[in-house]
């Protein structure tokens, strides 16, 4: 069973899903990712699903779960690169991933995470000041 690599870009983690997700792989990814967020003290998680052609309700829920878990560990999750057909399927399934942020591509995703982290820090500064 292949593993999904988790890459570290400064304080962000990049997960690029290039293989068809099956359920056990998805669960393993949740384990690995939470582990790495804690180890690397990451502030952001980016999940690139541009290579995914098939997304079912289980994967949809997994994305939601990862976002919720990261939030608990104080990291922002952004799902990037969703294909139009996948987006339509998810909407038809009634999974609108309301808890997850989305961006068009990795570039935009990084920008978004940066923005959110910066905003959080500014708010903290203001509260202290």
């Amino acid at each position, binding site marked *: 069973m292949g593993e999904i690599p988790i890459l570290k870009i400064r304080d962000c983690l990049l997960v690029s899903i290039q293989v068809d997700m099956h359920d056990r792989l998805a669960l393993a990814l949740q384990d690995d990712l939470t582990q790495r967020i804690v180890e690397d003290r990451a502030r952001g998680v980016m999940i690139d699903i541009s290579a995914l052609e098939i997304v079912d309700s289980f994967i949809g829920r997994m994305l939601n779960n990862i976002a919720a878990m990261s939030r608990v560990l104080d990291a922002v999750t952004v799902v990037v690169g969703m294909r*139009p057909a996948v*987006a339509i399927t*998810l*909407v*038809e399934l009634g999974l609108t*991933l309301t808890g997850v942020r*989305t961006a*068009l591509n990795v570039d*935009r995703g990084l920008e978004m995470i940066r923005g959110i982290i910066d905003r959080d820090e500014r708010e903290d500064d203001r509260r202290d000041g």
Partner: protein
Amino acid sequence: MSDHQNFLHGLIEKHQTQLLADWLACLTRGSASGAGAHRDDDRSEQAKRFIDQLRMGVRHGQLSDISASDWTPMRELLEDISRSQASEGISSTQTATFVFSFKEPLFELLRRNIQNDTDCLARETWSATRLLDQLGLFTIECYQRTREELIGRQQQELLELSTPVVQLWDGILALPLIGTLDSARTQIVMESLLERIVTSGAEIAIIDITGVPTVDTLVAQHLIKTISAARLMGADCILSGIRPQIAQTIVHLGLELNVISKATMADALRLALHRTRKTIVSRAAAPAQEA
């Protein structure tokens, strides 16, 4: 071929000219408004061919079943007639009347030729009326089929025409919706919007519903679907062009759209520019920027 079919065939053949003249007189009487010489010509030609084919059909085929192969030329003729009538916009009643009105001269002919045998007259009249009814109904069927094809084609054209995605600015798309949103249209709208988001890398899509006549729960659901799908692709949606009447409807129905909405496309564009960190400056206010 039975005797009575033989009899009917002989009768039609013998009195063909008379029948045609009577029928045409009957048809002209029927359409009070003079339809023009051109149409009269057409009609007499069609009537002549109809009688010809009827004679052939009676001679070779079964009177009770016009779907048999012996009636094929007749069916082709009727298809031809109803198709031309349908595309000219003539009503179904008029189209059907063309066939049904043949009863009058035909029954008259039967009556004149079978004067003393009422049994025989009744039998002949019955079989003739049954045949003509079948032919008339077949004509209506063809007429309807032609109209349905026409409607289908127009629907398709409308779909292709009515779903443009417009690029307003770098990273800002507009989707002016015109007409009622049904599931088939939503699907096409959604697909074309998402494709454009990918190709143009847009961050914001403005959905303008100025041209949507009514918003009910179904339309709202379709809008929500489109908005959610765009959000999954990483683009935010702004809803614009909500008319006062529609705003009231939305509230009365208790619909929750969960989206930023603006009254006009201009307001939506201003917000979109703000979101993408752009401003529009009037030249008088910033002369230093010139030259």
